[in-house]
């Protein structure tokens, strides 16, 4: 063997030995397939909020309330290829205006109790980025969400007031119902979310329901969960607000009362 060939062989063997250190996860293809299906569904729906980082959090079983909120919030923003959200700080007690201002550089309207006996439980801040198809960041924003519970506890349900400092141009009402509340225009939408494990195979019923717009499928949870969600979104002075009900199944009128209570804050 020539000297060049000896050297080449040594380099090849060295790389092969190093490469053999890594093992391939058995669920890798399932994760790929789940992500492909998710993206196909998102592309079909057009304006659905896409959040890869948050989906990854759910896939390792660390579904924070904020991540579920982001995935379920039906009225957000299209025009870009994807939105990423990164959770930051959280408040376990009702934050002051100064504290909120310090964390997110703006002060939304928010209250410590929503009508119907829902009291403040905690708040979380986030940074979000909207990216185009080439992964370039097109818009960045900060947000803070306030979570509320009845006295008896949430029992796994969510009622939140999500705020993001995003211009109105990024808001897409999609198929939401437009409702006038005095001088405020709000958008109401109801959806059923089905959370499934990564290796879940869609049934014929699932496919029919998806086609009919009755359910949204989201991959990554350990068990199958079906949750009815409602959201009311509005825009005011540079801030997009979303009141989100996941699982409480409150009346629309009750949700609108909550919106009015927040809107009335001076």
């Amino acid at each position, binding site marked *: 063997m020539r000297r060049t060939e000896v050297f080449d062989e040594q380099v090849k063997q060295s790389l092969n030995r190093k490469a053999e250190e890594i093992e391939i996860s058995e669920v890798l293809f399932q994760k790929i*397939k789940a992500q492909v299906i998710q993206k196909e569904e998102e592309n079909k729906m057009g304006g659905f909020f896409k959040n890869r980082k948050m989906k990854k959090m759910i896939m390792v079983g660390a579904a924070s309330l904020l991540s579920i909120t982001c995935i379920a919030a039906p009225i957000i923003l299209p025009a870009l290829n994807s939105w990423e959200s990164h959770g930051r700080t959280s408040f376990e007690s009702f934050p002051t205006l100064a504290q909120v201002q310090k964390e997110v550089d703006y002060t939304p309207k928010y209250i410590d109790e929503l009508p119907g006996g829902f009291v403040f439980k905690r708040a979380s801040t986030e940074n979000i980025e909207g990216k185009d198809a080439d992964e370039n960041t097109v818009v960045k924003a900060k947000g803070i969400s306030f979570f509320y519970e009845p006295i008896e506890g949430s029992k796994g349900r969510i009622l939140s007031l999500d705020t993001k400092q995003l211009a109105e141009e990024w808001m897409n009402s999609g198929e939401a119902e437009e409702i006038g509340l005095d001088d405020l225009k709000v958008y109401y939408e109801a959806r059923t979310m089905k959370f499934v494990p990564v290796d879940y195979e869609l049934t014929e019923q699932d496919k029919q329901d998806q086609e009919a717009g009755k359910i949204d499928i989201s991959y990554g949870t350990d068990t199958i969960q079906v949750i009815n969600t409602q959201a009311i979104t509005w825009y005011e002075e540079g801030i997009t607000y979303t009141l989100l009900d996941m699982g409480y199944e409150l009346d629309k009128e009750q949700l609108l009362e909550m919106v009015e209570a927040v809107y009335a804050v001076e």
Partner: protein
Amino acid sequence: MEEIELIRKVREGDKEAFGALFERYKVQAIRTVYLITGDQYRSEDIVQEAFVKCYLSIHKLRNPEQFRAWFFRILTRLAWRNDVRAKRMVPTEDIMEVMNKKADQISLENIYLQSETQRLLQGEIEKLGSEHQMILILYYYNELSVKEIAKVVGCLEGTVKSRLHTARGQLKKALIARQESKVENGEGEGYEAYRGI
């Protein structure tokens, strides 16, 4: 089934065909990325992203016969971008997990069986600049031709040859330096063979 036929089916949305394509490329894909990043966790994420991107944009591939180069282009670009961002560092809280994982992977048997030359080579390959290292990996591990590498990396064939030559030169220099050091210490292994290559 022929690869071209598989690609045609994947274009039609056939997920079984996509699975078959995955099976053909998964080992090389994950090992290539691992050679670039040196990190198992990130490697899997990158490979996942590459296959997803591959499926969603396979309709853009004009010539199915070029699939291999096209796919490795997606893969190496993601690996490159990720590696530059991560700079091979992990968050402090993860470092013990990573170190323990590396210790498990490199068994004692592996260490004893591996010749000193290869250990040295591995170390020197990791010291190469990212561009040179990537070309070395694509040439020696993936056994792509210079022409294919040029397509994957997006540069001229002359540039590929030049970088390959530089990378090989650096590795040989290291081997020779090691030999000279061993001779001074009264030891010896045939690194003389690498002079003048």
